[in-house]
């Protein structure tokens, strides 16, 4: 209760427009805290009353062997094996999930997103010289997000970035900068992409559907893999230190209990329950590379 009172008092001193209403909200928050309900506390908390969460992730850089592809798989014997061309850690995403939002993720609870539809609608902002498609008419029921569109580039037979975080209703634009046509598809939401391929130089705009993780694949490039994360709560990419072992993320969330999960290499590799107080929270999340990535078959010599 003191923390809530202090937070709201500072807000009152900053705004000072409607003191009676602010006093009333402060009283309600204090009452909710006395009752012990964090949900009630969040509901009673003002919109701007969020706490800063500082997440520190420890994950050592690894040099996993490349997965074998065909019959032959050996090292060259001249120079040691180098690291992967692209470090996957910048694509790591920290997601704070509220414990009682499973009903939102249930597709049955959101029939609008489960409805199919392959008729792409014209984008509102088509770039000059590029065909843009909107392949998510069923997601019209999803309220539009104020988040600016996110652009995903298909280049070198891969997507940049490979992990896309977009709140529900956010427009995601895929741009094919490769020499060949690419047709994307999503098993979790088949209505998200059209059946026709994305020609070189064209763009495709889709709307992030219901919360969840959506794996994107390409028929032309089986190795091409991207994940669209529509988080239930706040989510953010990690910023990695120069040495590469420590990553951090800063989020502003209402106080309460959350489940912090780290999404890395297209899967969740770590999870931790955290309690966010009005003063904020700071915790350390230790994660390791997925075992399947490291424990690949050793190459022959």
């Amino acid at each position, binding site marked *: 209760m003191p923390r809530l009172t202090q937070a709201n008092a500072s807000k009152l001193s900053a705004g000072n427009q409607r003191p009676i209403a602010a006093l009333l909200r402060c009283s309600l928050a204090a009452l909710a805290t006395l009752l012990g309900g964090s949900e009630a506390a969040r509901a009673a908390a003002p919109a701007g009353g969020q706490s800063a969460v500082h997440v520190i992730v420890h994950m050592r850089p690894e040099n996993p062997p*490349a997965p074998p592809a065909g019959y032959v798989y050996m090292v060259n014997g001249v*120079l040691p094996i180098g690291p992967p061309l692209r470090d996957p850690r910048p694509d790591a995403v920290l997601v704070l999930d509220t414990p009682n939002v499973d009903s939102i993720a249930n597709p049955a609870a959101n029939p609008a997103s489960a409805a199919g539809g392959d008729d792409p609608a014209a984008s509102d902002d088509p770039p000059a010289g590029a065909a843009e498609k909107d392949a998510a008419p069923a997601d019209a029921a999803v309220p539009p997000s104020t988040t600016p569109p996110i652009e995903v580039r298909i280049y070198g037979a891969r997507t940049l970035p490979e992990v896309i975080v977009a709140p529900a209703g956010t427009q995601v634009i895929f741009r094919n900068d490769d020499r060949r046509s690419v047709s994307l598809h999503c098993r979790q939401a088949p209505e998200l992409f059209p059946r026709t391929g994305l020609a070189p130089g064209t763009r495709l705009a889709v709307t992030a559907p219901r919360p969840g993780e959506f794996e994107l694949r390409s028929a032309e490039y089986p190795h091409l893999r991207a994940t669209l994360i529509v988080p239930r709560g706040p989510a953010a990419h990690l910023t990695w230190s120069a040495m590469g072992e420590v990553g951090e993320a800063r989020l502003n969330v209402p106080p309460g209990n959350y489940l912090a999960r780290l999404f890395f290499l297209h899967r969740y590799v770590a999870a931790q329950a955290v309690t966010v107080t009005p003063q904020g929270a700071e915790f350390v999340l230790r994660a390791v590379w997925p075992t399947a990535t490291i424990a690949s078959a050793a190459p022959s010599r």
Partner: protein
Amino acid sequence: MPLSKLWLFLLSMLCGLGALLLITLEPELRRRESDEQQGRLLRAGPLATQILSNQAHQLVAAAVQMSSDAILQTSLNEMGRGQGELAILHTTAQTQLRQLNRDFGAGLVMVTDARGRVLARIGHDEAVYRDPVDGFPVVESALRGYRLDDLWLLDGALYRVAASPIVAPGRDRYVGALIVGQVLGGDTARQLSRLTGVDAVFLAGKEIAASSLTGAAAALDVQAILAARKSMLAPGGSQSQGQPPGLLRAPQPGPERWLGFVELPGEAAHQGGLLLLVAEVTSNRTLPGLLREAVKHGKPTQSLLVLLGAVALFYFIGLAILRVESTAMAQREAAAEVRRRRVEQPRELRPSSGSMREQLAPSEPSSVSAQMEALQGEDYQPQESGTASGRRALSSQSVNELGVVSASENSAHSAETVVASPMRWAAQTANSGELPHEADPAASDQQWSTLPPPSSNFEPTLVAGAPGGNNETTDADASFYQVFQEYVMARERCHESVEGLSYEQFRQRLVESRAQIMRQHECRAVDFQVYIKDGRAALRATPLWK
């Protein structure tokens, strides 16, 4: 006749053998062929994998050899350092790639810098360069230092690609990667078919990328095959009874085909890249073809052994039946021959029946009666006839013996009356205690087989009743005919000629003799008996009063 039946039997046996071969041998050969093809498919799978692995190693070796080219190393080194004109480096690298590929003949060769951007390529889009391909796992792995291979599906064709890193001339870093690709086409499929013994089909997606099948056999229902394979691989999938695991019978009409699947490792495997092995069970329904197939399998099949056993059994059964039948036929033919001779000989005598007629002519009874009279003058014994009362009657009666017919050895036409010894006959009948017509039939039947010397005795035969008496005419005729038969047989046994003998004349003679004797002795009947005396057949007439 038996020989012709034997040939017919053997011919039928041969036809049956052929039919049985077609019926029993063909299914077993087909089953064996099917088992053989399935086994061949099971062996062809690992063999094809080994062949493809060898090809991959050769391809990787070629990539390694190309990647060690100094010109390529220098070009990529300068490209990484930004020291050379990119177009010139591109031209230089492309020319060198052509030079290196001249002997190898790969379908696709390209070289990238350390970041995965193409410097030069040949075979596909040769004019394009600087485009990134680092997203391909094989390129990325090669840029890290791996030598490996992969399977690509480009423009509907399967490419077995190999990649090798290119090390800087100073051997201090990787400056790029070299990728070599070879099409898995018809040549590879035919090579696999030649080495494995089954047909090979490369599937890309749901289409045929390359195949060693030709003609109508190349028409495969890929959709149905993939659907059947999917159901087979599903948990609790439909695996047929007795079907080897991993094999599938082609779900399409036509000849029996067995399918084996070989997973192709690489990226194209996710796009439906698959090696399909096809073994077709040939059907050779001709008898020579079946025999060739049976010989090809090295040892007689089980059906063939059973078949041969059945044929041998039928053969022996047939031989036994044939032997029995031929024996019975010979007996019947012998009997028929005797009858034919008996019937035909009197007919032959008709035109010149004067001899018989002379033998049995009514004019001769004078001689017969004379002999009868002579016989009466000689010692004779009364003959018992019939019952006890008959014996009493006979005791007061005289018994006459009449040698009616007697043929000489040289001339059958000469008639001679043979008079048997009445004393000997009387003694025999007295010893036996039975009348001649009461003799045992079995003993009577054996009289011919146990024929005593011609001078031993005679056997009584039947009694011919007087015409108009109690006996019917037919009975008398039957008796006369039986006497005639016995007389003919007696002459044959005595090796006397029976030519010229006629039953009608014989009968007429007996009728006349009977009438004469009955008139002479006032008896009621006359018994004619055939006997043999001195190696000659003769007739004896015995009057009967009761």
